[in-house]
């Protein structure tokens, strides 16, 4: 038995839900009866029977019916689903936060100025005096990007002529052949 809210069983609980709802969620409209324990393993084993019952109509689903009630009460799955989503969301957020290195907080001033944390700035290769642009990339997220210079502060030509240029010869030495390879052969019958 797995009881919603029981931390020790979150994974099993979620696995059951995953198996039950992944494919059939749009078709399920069952309801869970509050605090009453539900055997989700049985639920999973019996999902084909559920589908058959739904297809046939008029049948009840014994593992989801609160037998203490005078009338068969279909249990509320929206609570189960919401709970499962909240559990998985929390886990997802925890994993993301753990995997994303954070620097110290900085405050946006009244005129919109922010200080780039030194560690992030150095890691991104942005030096004092560099020009940057700010690009909104989503709610609460702005990309700060350096502009105006090639890697290592050299001109692009200096960088491309250096041994550090990883593009040297990479296209095969015949640019037009490379383009023709991607765009296909040029047919003979043209008006040019």
């Amino acid at each position, binding site marked *: 038995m797995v009881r919603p809210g029981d931390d020790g069983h979150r994974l099993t609980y979620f696995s059951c839900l995953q198996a039950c709802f992944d494919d059939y969620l749009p078709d399920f409209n069952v309801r869970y009866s509050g605090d009453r324990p539900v055997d989700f393993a049985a639920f999973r084993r019996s999902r084909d029977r559920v589908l058959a019952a739904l297809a046939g109509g008029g049948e009840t689903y014994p593992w989801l019916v609160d037998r203490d009630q005078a009338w068969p009460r279909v249990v509320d799955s929206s609570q189960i689903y919401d709970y499962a989503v909240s559990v998985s969301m929390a886990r997802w957020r925890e994993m993301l936060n753990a995997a994303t290195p954070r620097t110290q907080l900085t405050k946006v001033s009244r005129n919109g100025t922010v200080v780039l944390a030194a560690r992030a700035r150095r890691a991104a290769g942005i030096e004092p005096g560099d020009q940057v642009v700010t690009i909104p990339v989503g709610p609460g997220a702005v990309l700060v990007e350096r502009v*105006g210079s090639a890697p290592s502060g050299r001109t692009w030509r200096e960088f491309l*002529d250096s041994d550090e240029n990883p593009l040297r010869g990479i296209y095969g030495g015949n640019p037009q052949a490379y383009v023709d390879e991607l765009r296909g052969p040029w047919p003979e019958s043209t008006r040019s």
Partner: protein
Amino acid sequence: MAREHPLVAAVRGAGGGFLCDTAPLVYLLERTAPRPLLAVVDALFDRVEEGALGCLVSAFSAAELFVRPYRVHPPAVTVVDGFLRGPNVGVVEPSLGVAHGAARLVARRVVPRLGDAIVAATAADLGLPLVTADQRLARAVGGLLVQDYV
């Protein structure tokens, strides 16, 4: 004062901006072209880096530039990306106007390949000269052929 390179002068005469096809960018980035050809491309892009000219690149060409690096040497992708994000270089997103223009070029058999047509239609849509290394495309749409300026 040194005389301005003829291709630079041609682009400047057309307003100072140009749309660059894929092959001239490959010449620039790859650095293995014959010296006279490289000199033409360098003259053009030195002015771009100085801010005297503006270079636009069709998203189609940008994708072509990325294909080989992604295929054989992923770290090189960042160099292409960095170049395309330069201050005087811009990538032009496809639009419905470009789609119409490209479709007309292909339908009327002016330019048979859709990729060429998208690049040419992008230049036409922006009202910019097309700088290309493809003689057939340059002749078909009146572009500036790099080899003509060697």
